[in-house]
């Protein structure tokens, strides 16, 4: 494969697509598939074959279109017309759409999203540019959309140093949660001495409610491969690993297929684009441990060891896989790189806010009218995201708080709705950007209960290597259960806060260090709810079932002493 071949491949695919009068894309992301997208696609294909329309109309599986709670989603693209997205499509509805298209009529509008649907119109898609508009299982479609152009350009026109500089100029920061400047990381890895170097894409996304990375891997796998190859070229690595969460079967399968297709086409492997650059990518599948999203655990797992973190420094860029310098980036970070290399670092740096450049993908979930995947410029306010894009809170209820950053993050209360979503502002209100999960809560959410949920998660996912996290999270969860069960005392609350301090300060890795955040941030904004649970045995949201207010001091003492119902450790 050389650059001319790439151009031919793109042109051939464009021609092929233009031969169809109409393309019907059925979202084949996990949310839509679980809502029945496969039967929709099957029935479309069957109907096309039966009516012999398959030369004019093509039905294809695509990646994620965004408004996941409205799935299965179907997008109709007709030449010279505006595309239409249909929501909640049943096989029956799909046949109707097809019928009207065949007769050249406007498709039925019953379940079509309006053309100016704010959920879609107010987004800015960079990482998700191809999601929902190409078939992720065909490399030709990615190439036709301009894919691998940035890699071809870099290999021929740019030095590794140039690539690092461009990434630095873009101001891109790690999208996995920590927000470390990507350019700095790449430079460190580039300058590190090592016999061999590695690039690792972290696809072990595990925050409850977050699925940005899964969606990117499912919807546009080649974008990640191209980003990894660019990273490999920039730092001088010939081997990349994608670490995919074990539960992400579909993502793993599509990546696997994408790697094979790219290798067959000569886009990966030896002498990529006729240059001297060799790059192989392999997949490693996780076995279901949240802690393996932490980079040192992830590397241990790739090397076939027990997935436990180790003390940093040394950082992976100094000593990573098998002791060699290793560049680890989140999937979303790497997927941003082809766009940066394609359009320039300055272009990317022009998007977003002062300290946080570019766009960010969020998984909008919880008590919001339209749940799904969105991509907006950094600095978009929470209010815009929840009310303009997400359509507000369903059922006429009030917005109470948004949990960002999953179990490592914190909540943003209604008073801070105008917080711009960027690294600095979110830190200022006591939470983190995290990987991009946004769980919206209304007044039916009880904040101590929410904190208890996340602590339960951390307790369950603690690897057990260090004592503060292993035992501290269990004790914190017990104390929270006492609070939500109405048996806690104010002394328990003090103990809880002290444990938050210890676990945050003394744990070995990021999982433990951030485990107290949901407690600390809900305490910061909703302390009165905690106190009300303790001193008045009352849960305003009506979520917690409180222990009966005991009769007599003896019963009361017993209730406090025994705490919540015991559980198996």
């Amino acid at each position, binding site marked *: 494969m050389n650059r001319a071949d790439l151009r031919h491949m793109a042109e051939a695919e464009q021609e092929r697509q233009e031969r169809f009068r109409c393309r019907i894309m059925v979202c084949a992301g996990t949310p839509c598939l679980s809502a029945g997208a496969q039967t929709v696609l099957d029935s479309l294909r069957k109907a096309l074959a039966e009516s012999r329309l398959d030369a004019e109309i093509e039905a294809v599986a695509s990646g994620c279109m965004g408004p996941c709670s409205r799935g299965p989603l179907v997008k109709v693209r007709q030449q010279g017309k505006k595309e239409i997205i249909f929501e909640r499509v049943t096989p029956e509805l799909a046949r109707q759409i097809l019928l009207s298209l065949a007769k050249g009529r406007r498709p039925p509008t019953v379940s079509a999203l309006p053309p100016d649907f704010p959920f879609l119109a107010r987004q800015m898609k960079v990482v998700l540019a191809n999601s929902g508009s190409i078939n992720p299982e065909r490399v030709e479609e990615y190439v036709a959309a301009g894919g691998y152009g940035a890699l071809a350009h870099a290999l021929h026109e740019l030095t590794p140093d140039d690539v690092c500089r461009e990434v630095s100029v873009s101001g891109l920061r790690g999208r996995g949660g920590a927000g470390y400047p990507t350019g700095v990381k790449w430079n460190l890895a580039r300058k590190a001495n090592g016999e061999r170097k590695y690039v690792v894409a972290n696809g072990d996304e595990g925050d409850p409610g977050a699925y940005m990375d899964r969606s990117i891997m499912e919807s546009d796998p080649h974008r990640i491969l191209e980003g990894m190859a660019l990273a490999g070229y920039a730092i001088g690595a010939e081997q990349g690993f994608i670490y995919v969460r074990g539960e992400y079967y579909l993502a793993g399968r599509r990546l696997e297929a994408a790697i094979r297709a790219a290798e067959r086409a000569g886009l990966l492997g030896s002498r990529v684009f006729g240059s001297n650059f060799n790059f192989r990518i392999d997949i490693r599948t996780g076995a279901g441990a949240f802690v393996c999203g932490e980079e040192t655990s992830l590397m241990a797992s790739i090397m076939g060891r027990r997935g436990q973190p180790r*003390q940093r420094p040394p950082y992976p860029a100094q000593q990573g896989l098998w002791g060699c310098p290793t560049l680890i980036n989140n999937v979303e970070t790497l997927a941003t790189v082809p766009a940066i290399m394609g359009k320039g670092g300055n272009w990317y740096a022009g998007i977003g806010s002062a300290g946080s450049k570019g766009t960010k993908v969020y998984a909008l979930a919880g008590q919001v009218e339209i749940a799904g995947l969105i991509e907006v410029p950094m600095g978009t306010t929470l209010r815009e995201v929840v009310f303009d894009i997400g359509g507000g809170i369903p059922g006429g209820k009030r917005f109470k708080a948004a949990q960002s950053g999953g179990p490592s993050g914190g909540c943003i209360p209604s008073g801070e709705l105008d917080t711009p979503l960027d690294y600095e502002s979110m830190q200022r209100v006591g939470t983190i950007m995290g990987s991009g999960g946004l769980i919206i809560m209304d007044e039916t959410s009880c904040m101590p209960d929410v904190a208890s949920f996340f602590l339960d998660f951390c307790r369950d996912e603690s690897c057990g290597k260090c004592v503060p996290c292993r035992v501290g999270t269990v004790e914190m969860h017990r104390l929270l259960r006492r609070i939500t069960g109405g048996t806690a005392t104010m002394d328990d609350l003090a*103990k809880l806060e002290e444990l938050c301090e210890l676990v945050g300060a003394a744990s070995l890795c990021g999982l433990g260090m951030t485990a107290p955040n949901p407690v600390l941030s809900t305490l910061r904004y909703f302390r009165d709810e905690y106190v009300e649970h303790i001193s008045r045995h009352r849960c305003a949201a009506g979520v917690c079932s409180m222990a009966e207010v005991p009769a007599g001091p003896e019963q009361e003492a017993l209730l406090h002493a025994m705490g919540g119902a015991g559980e198996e*450790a």
Partner: protein
Amino acid sequence: MSVVTLTIDGELVSGRRGETLLQVIREHGLALPTLCHLEGLSERGGCRLCIVEVEGSPRPMPACSTAAREGMVVRTATDRLIRYRRMIVELLFAERNHYCAVCVSAGNCELQTVAATLGVDHVRYEYLSPRLTMDLSHERFGIDHNRCILCTRCVRVCDEVEGVHTWDVSCRGVRSRVIADLNHPWGRSETCTSCGKCVQVCPTGALFTKGAAVGEMVKDAGMLTRVIEGRDKKGWQE
């Protein structure tokens, strides 16, 4: 030999490049509690008792797995650190069933000693009281999971010194258990050489020689350095 100079608790001290903070601190006669660290084994950094404050670092760092660097300013015994260490010991006692009164290692137990040294006279946290077993299937030794603090000295000595890797850890978090082979009874382990190193390095009464009654299990902490030195000097060939 290159030297690094650093400040520890206000004193200017020197150490060799490549040494850990813990080594430098102990060489200068300062006490720092540890449980998972053992001279001769790789560092784990898991018990977090040896945490120290390093100027410029936002969080306390474990001295055992932090390299001593030129110009570091280190504090080993601030009120905050002592409070954290006490809490960590309390958590360890709450985690499993450490009944010192009926333990083979009472009086010779590192956990017991560390607790007393730190002034831990009671545990404020809820005892988790897990139901744990003992494995007495080995003909000479026994393991009592009730007393295990998951320091993994046994795992490391078996892997790194004996070269066998009979021991490892199964499950995760508070459910973690030390297991022999693929979770077989110790006595049926096909890899165990019955060398007993794990028993000698275990800081508590979790691993013991059968037949020991309360307080009778005295461990030989110097065994490991003697083995390693003997091996390095090829002492057994003469």
